């Protein structure tokens, strides 16, 4: 394409002014134009030929259309031999070939229209044409820095150096070869042009040469993926040729992260460990690591070891936590791209035992295999405190007392009981691991003989407790009034020995049952086809508390 520039220098300035279309210079020729001023007859279907159109307003004695070399003297091809011409529009096409059919060489050409009217002097008009047989070139030389860490103390922008060559000549009225730079994130998704803030130096105006395009990604950092990005630089010239260059670089958008091994962040501890053990991680490695104790400056962490992508480290703790309370430490890690991550670590030293739970009292016997143990506990605002329930010296259940609703902090848990004496004690363990003194003791005597057991009086929400002689296949319980009419019924088809039927005090039709004596008839069916039937009269009081 450099030959174009040489040819352009030889063309008369007046001719260059006729770049795209030439308005009629005389009334006889109302229009003379070349559709494609640059053609590349390479058979790719794009700009392989150009159309030359002229329009005569009247008949002419002679009309000729000839393609000349750039010197406007040497004929290359005759599109129309001199001959009389009628008024109207005439289209001719030039496919970049000489008069003898051979391919014309790359360079500039002139197409000349000569019209001889019936009276008066002949009219001559010329337009430039370019035959482009060479594609442009583009090459990305570098993308610096790599990795690029926007928003850090390093370079503000990514600098992409690239070379562009063999561009089409710049003509008046025709846009320069198009330069397009695309960026693809690690997922292969293109970053929208509207989000790219690209600056090319020197400004690209269609010429060949060395350029540097910079990308300032600071504003996009929070949304950018960390990983390998792809730069695709394309040049599309006027003849339809395309050149493309691809380059990859690393973009670091993630701060180093910390993982605390022991004690964990926001831990509550009842005894102070020697050190905090943790690991810092960054895909590109940790360059430096610092810790800041309360009321002190950052100091470099020296006890580190590398394992895979992580930097394990330990910092002393025992001499910093001398009294109970909450302490804040700050850790700072800088990766090898210069990106820093800061972690605010918090630890609470608590050596005070929490308050003991208070169990609700119970007297009498129990007839179901689970007992609703209830009580209250003051968790002191510790959301991680738990209550541990011990039956006859062995743990049987626990609950998170920190989830209880203040101020009552009342809990109720259904705990299993064993036949005979069940002595329950509860402890509270706070998040630091401190154990409370034992609660008061509640003794539940579980009488597991077969039968139907009903509270006196029975109140809505209470339960009928039914015990089989052995594991049963199913149980049914019907409640009748004294005259024998059914009030409600319950069924449990699960194989169990202990059944509990809770009753809301509504009959089978949903109506509230009145106060008075009722008869409960329970049937337990066993796998061998036998059954036990228990009948009990009980007093129902829907108004009792």
């Amino acid at each position: 394409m450099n030959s174009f520039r040489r040819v352009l220098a030889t063309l008369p300035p007046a001719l260059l002014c006729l770049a795209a279309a030439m308005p009629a210079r005389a009334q006889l020729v109302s229009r003379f134009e070349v559709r494609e001023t640059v053609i590349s007859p390479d058979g790719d279907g794009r700009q392989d030929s150009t159309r030359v159109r002229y329009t005569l307003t009247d008949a002419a004695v002679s009309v000729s259309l000839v393609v000349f070399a750039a010197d406007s003297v040497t004929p290359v091809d005759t599109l129309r031999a001199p001959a009389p011409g009628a008024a109207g529009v005439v289209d001719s096409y030039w496919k970049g070939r000489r008069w003898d059919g051979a391919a014309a060489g790359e360079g500039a050409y002139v197409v000349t229209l000569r019209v001889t009217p019936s009276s008066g002097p002949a009219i001559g008009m010329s337009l430039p044409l370019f035959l482009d047989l060479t594609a442009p070139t583009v090459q990305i030389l570098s993308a610096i820095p790599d990795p690029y860490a926007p928003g850090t103390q390093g370079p503000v922008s990514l600098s992409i150096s690239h070379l562009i060559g063999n561009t089409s000549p710049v003509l008046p009225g025709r846009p320069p070869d198009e330069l397009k730079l695309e960026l693809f994130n690690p997922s292969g998704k293109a970053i929208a042009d509207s989000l790219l803030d690209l600056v090319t130096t020197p400004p690209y105006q269609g010429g060949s040469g060395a350029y540097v395009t910079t990308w300032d990604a600071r504003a996009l950092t929070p949304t950018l993926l960390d990983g390998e990005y792809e730069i695709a630089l394309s040049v599309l010239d006027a003849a339809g040729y395309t050149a493309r260059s691809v380059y990859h670089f690393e973009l670091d958008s993630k701060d180093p992260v910390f993982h605390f091994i022991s004690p964990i962040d926001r831990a509550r501890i009842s005894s102070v460990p020697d050190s905090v053990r943790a690991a810092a991680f960054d895909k590109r490695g940790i360059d430096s690591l610092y810790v800041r104790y309360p009321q002190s400056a950052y100091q470099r962490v020296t006890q580190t070891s590398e394992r895979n992508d992580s930097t394990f480290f330990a910092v002393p703790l025992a001499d910093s936590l001398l009294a109970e309370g909450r302490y804040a430490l700050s850790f700072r890690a800088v990766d090898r791209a210069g990106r820093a991550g800061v972690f605010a670590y918090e630890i609470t030293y608590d050596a005070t035992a929490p308050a003991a739970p208070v169990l609700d009292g119970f007297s009498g016997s129990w007839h179901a295999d689970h007992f609703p143990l209830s009580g209250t506990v003051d968790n002191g605002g510790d959301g991680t405190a738990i209550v541990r329930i011990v039956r006859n010296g062995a743990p049987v259940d626990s609950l998170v007392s920190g989830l209880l609703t203040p101020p009552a902090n009342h809990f109720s848990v259904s705990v299993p009981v064993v036949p005979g004496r069940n002595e329950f004690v509860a402890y509270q363990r706070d998040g630091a691991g401190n154990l409370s003194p034992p609660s008061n003791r509640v003794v539940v005597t579980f009488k597991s003989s077969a039968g139907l057991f009903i509270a006196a009086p029975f109140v809505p929400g209470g339960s009928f407790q039914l015990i089989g002689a052995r594991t049963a296949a199913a149980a049914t319980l019907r409640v009748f009034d004294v005259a024998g009419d059914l009030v409600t019924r319950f069924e449990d088809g699960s194989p169990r020995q202990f059944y509990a039927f809770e009753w809301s005090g509504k009959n089978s039709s949903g109506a509230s049952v009145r106060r008075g004596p009722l008869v409960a008839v329970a049937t337990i069916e066993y796998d061998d086809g036998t059954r036990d039937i228990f009948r009990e009269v009980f007093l129902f009081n829907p108004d009792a508390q």
Partner: protein
Amino acid sequence: MKRFALACIAISALAGAAPARADSSTGGAFILPGYGARAWGMAGAVSAVIDDESALDWNPARISLAARSLGASYVNLVPGASLGQAQLAFVMPLSQPANGVATHAVGAMFSNLSADIAGGTSYSENHLRAVYAYTPQPLVSVAIAGQAFFSRGDIGGFDAWGTSVDFAGRLSLSKNWDLGAVGKDMFSRYSFDDGRDSHKETSVVLGIATRRIPMVTLSADVVRQYASWTRALFGFETVYLVDHLALRGGLAMNRAGESRTAVSFGASLRAWNARLVVHYGATLDDETAFGTTHRVSLGVRM
């Protein structure tokens, strides 16, 4: 006999018009099963049949057909549990019966219901019932029954007292056909010692009976309660040995809460110049309900 069959069909249709399962009972205090082994031997289908002291409970209008008599009855209502019902009944015509029907008749009945409650406590109810029946002409009688009752329990909240009123009537359609109608607890109210009030569930009984077959009485009742026809009752009674022996049976189709059927049977024996009669009745209820219960009652004609 065809007419009775039609009546039974009508009663069945009446009961069948209700949903397959009537509403459940709402329970409450002062619910008392009827008096006596004779009536229960016929499954309680006696509102158009009963003609002794049992009528005080089943159809007060029919005490106009009863001789002066005294009766006593006892039943343990729930096998396996202690729920006993003991009753004393006395009926007396105030005028000389004409054609076996007294123009004025009165009666009284005392009932006691005692239960040992789960948890080792006890509960009892006492009911005192007074009845007056008036027979303006031999084919028709009407009656009113007033009842006072109180309860007591070892557990607080079950001491209560109250009153109720029943209305009843009988109509003799012919020599062999009788109708009975009873409205039970048409007005009732009782109060607990904590000040809360309640009332008994109203029920209506319609009955028909025939003696077209020699020595055999057939009867059928239908009971409306809990806003539906909850019970259809069918019974029969036969007499032998010059009225010294009676055999009876019955069928109760209960629909409250869930459908179930109970079969009843019974017998009576008269002695002491027919002045003493001993009744026995058994009810074969579903074993998953009340099971089999036995009633004994005694009547003395004075």
